[in-house]
């Protein structure tokens, strides 16, 4: 997952969305012009009431050159398909990409992908025909959706002329539902009480998941997948409709 810097996440407390994604995919399949997107939407999406145990999931993580999708690019993508029973890490995929924006030295120190490695990597355009079919028909799982959704949407728009939108389950948002329901009171602030961290490693720790070295796209994708399995085990049920989780 992308390095957010201290205390940058926090106010994304929006509840699960009421978007009818099945209907949206049907509309887009008819309206999209690029064949890759027609195909992507044509695969369809599960109905909102589908129990989470029946939903094919795919955890994704991007490493990027910076925080904002407007002037930064994707350096690597990690992806792992899974469901409630099994994380298919043996089928994980990873791509190293050449971003159209400069790789800052700061981001190099974060995800340890160097200028020379990136130089020989392909552009996202070359990877999309592989990537999009792996996302099609599945609900994406991320930790902090702004990154993956915004970056993919912006990058695809630049390359295919149309943007892409899909449902995501955000494991950070699921934690925020517990720990960001109300802001700290003045009394808490006076007592210098810290908010409970909802970062990936801190959240994982609450479910007794082991610490992983962060900022490696596949590892972070697996880490989010494990976190979602744990969240469902402890707080939801296999029968929870996907609409209560996605947004």
């Amino acid at each position, binding site marked *: 997952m992308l390095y957010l810097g201290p205390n940058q996440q926090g106010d994304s407390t929006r509840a699960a969305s009421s978007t009818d994604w099945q209907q949206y995919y049907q509309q887009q399949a008819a309206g999209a012009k690029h064949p890759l997107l027609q195909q992507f939407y044509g695969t369809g999406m599960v109905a909102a009431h589908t129990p989470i145990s029946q939903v094919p999931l795919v955890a994704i993580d991007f490493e990027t050159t910076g925080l904002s999708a407007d002037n930064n690019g994707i350096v690597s993508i990690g992806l792992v398909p899974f469901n409630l029973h099994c994380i298919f890490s043996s089928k*994980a995929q990873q791509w190293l990409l050449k971003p159209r924006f400069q790789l800052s030295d700061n981001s190099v120190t974060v995800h340890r992908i160097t200028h020379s490695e990136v130089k020989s990597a392909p552009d996202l355009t070359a990877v999309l025909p592989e990537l999009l079919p792996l996302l099609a028909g599945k609900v994406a799982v991320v930790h902090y959706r702004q990154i993956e959704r915004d970056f993919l949407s912006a990058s695809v728009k630049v390359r295919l002329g149309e943007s892409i939108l899909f449902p995501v389950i955000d494991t950070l948002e699921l934690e925020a539902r517990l720990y960001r329901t109300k802001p700290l009171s003045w009394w808490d602030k006076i007592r210098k009480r810290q908010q409970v961290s909802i970062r990936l490693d801190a959240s994982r720790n609450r479910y*007794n998941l082991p610490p992983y070295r962060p900022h490696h796209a596949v590892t972070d994708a*697996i880490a989010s997948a494990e976190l979602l399995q744990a969240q469902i085990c402890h707080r939801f049920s296999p029968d929870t409709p996907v609409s209560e989780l996605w947004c």
Partner: protein
Amino acid sequence: MEIEQIEILEFLKRHSPFQELPADQIQQVALSIDIGYFKAGSDILRFNEPLHALHLVRSGAVETFRRNGDLYNRLSEGGIFAEQGLLRGGKVRFPATALEDTLIYFIPDNVFQQLFDENEFFADYVQVGDSERRKTSKASSQARADLLGATVGTLLSREPVSIGSDANVWQAAQLMTEQSVSSLLILDKEQHLTGIITDKDIRARLVAPGLKSETPVTDIMSANPVTIEQQQYIFEAMMLMLRHNLHHLPVVKQQKAVGVIAISDIIRFESQNSLYVVSRIFRKQTIAELQLLVPDVHACFVRMVNEDANSQMIGSAMAAIGRSFKQRLLELAEAQLGPPPVPYCFLALGSMARDEQLVLTDQDNALVLDNRYDPAEHDSYFEKLARFVSDGLAACGYTYCTGKVMATNKEWRQPLKVWQQYFQSWIEQPTAERLLQSSIFFDIDGVWGQTQWAEQLQRLVSNLARKKTLFLASMARNALNRTPPLGFFKDFVMEQDGKQNNSLNIKRRGTAPFVDLIRVHALAIGSTESNSYSRLQDITAAEIMPKGRAEDLRDAFEVIAMTRIRHQAAALRQGTEPDNNVLPEQLSEFERKHLKEAFQVLSNAQKFMKFHLKA
């Protein structure tokens, strides 16, 4: 692009049997793994379900069960399970449940089968290593239901039956009959335990001498009985009963009696029969009869090894048996020679005194005589007594001591004051050569007679030795004479100087230098313990070593001691003469690896001692 599973790979590299795989194979395993999360309390595997993967615990804890619901194994990080099911038909044999929130790595059946077929170490580990791994993983878990871990409290099934100290034997017998118990605790007015009476006491101390049944219970009770704390381990209770030859042991909790355990409770709980052997020793009437028990002693040793007892339990059980042989032989000797002309104490030295005896052992013993001892008048008696015991022990498998450290040797058959002078002279005018012969005298235990003299000598040593740098340096120098080998390879032993040998004397190169090293440190801090593990506890408490070092020593000592014990048990099972010569090719890769590490710990500890005691 080529995918990297950094976390999975790093994890495999930290755990057997994966870390031993060649680099390309371990990489292949890492790429084949899928993952699942299981909340604490949830089922991971159900009996007879189809099974598709070897399960590896990434984090958390898992319990597996037998079909009857008994706990089969408890696993933590790095533990593997479901291998039996994969090897036998692909169905779950031992159901598994997550004890804590758990993350499992699934290694697909085809990858597992391939590793099993192609990699000998992997196959050995999965198959043969099972009981070994169970033991090590169990050792780290908290609650255990076996002999090693169960506490005395678990044997208690009823409240203790007791009577006031003002009662008479008739009332006591009525109560015992009513409650159908074979022992009764005697409590004073403050409800404190003051004694115990048993069926046998009523028979032997009341009926046989012809006393009236109105006799107060206090007249026939065993006053101030030996007790055990509720939270102590069953094996400690067993050792206590062996040592004092007791059949009933009151159990106390914060000085209040909470129950009684009988030998039958332990026997029912634990099938091994060192207790039987001891009780039979005391029923034998001649040396020839005692000799007939030797196969039983060996069987008992093998059984304890089979049942995964640790070296401490085996060593103390065997020492208890050896001690009982000595005690019975002395009883028989006194019956034959008449009562001793002056009081005496029969000493056990060396491994028996340390509670670290095995099946292959010398008899090391000595006699401490009363200070009124007059050689001209009394020595013929004690000479005959010593001869009787020594010959008897030799007949029962305890060979004569090659160093002549036996009570048959006049030098080691002396009054207490001479013994005190011996120790003073060893400690105050030490030379390495003199001490080489006498280090065995620093492990002493009184087995018969005036056993308090043994304790007196121990206290003398602990008071004198502590500050004597020259003495300690000489002892340390001797302890450094024997060094461990550098390591082990498939079929040879690598020496420190690069030389290769085919076999290794595990006693001379392993347990003995370890015992020597621990003894020197124990003397340096004034410890009065004899057992190496107890000495290590004192050494830990004295904080003379860097933190954690004494614990490392204990673990390494256990590894070496168990290798020696298993080697001897294997010989007994095959019907051959047990010895101390271990052939590296007879060890598994797993054992070789641990042994190598244990020797490294010993070697480092020797270097530390050399520096610390200026040897």
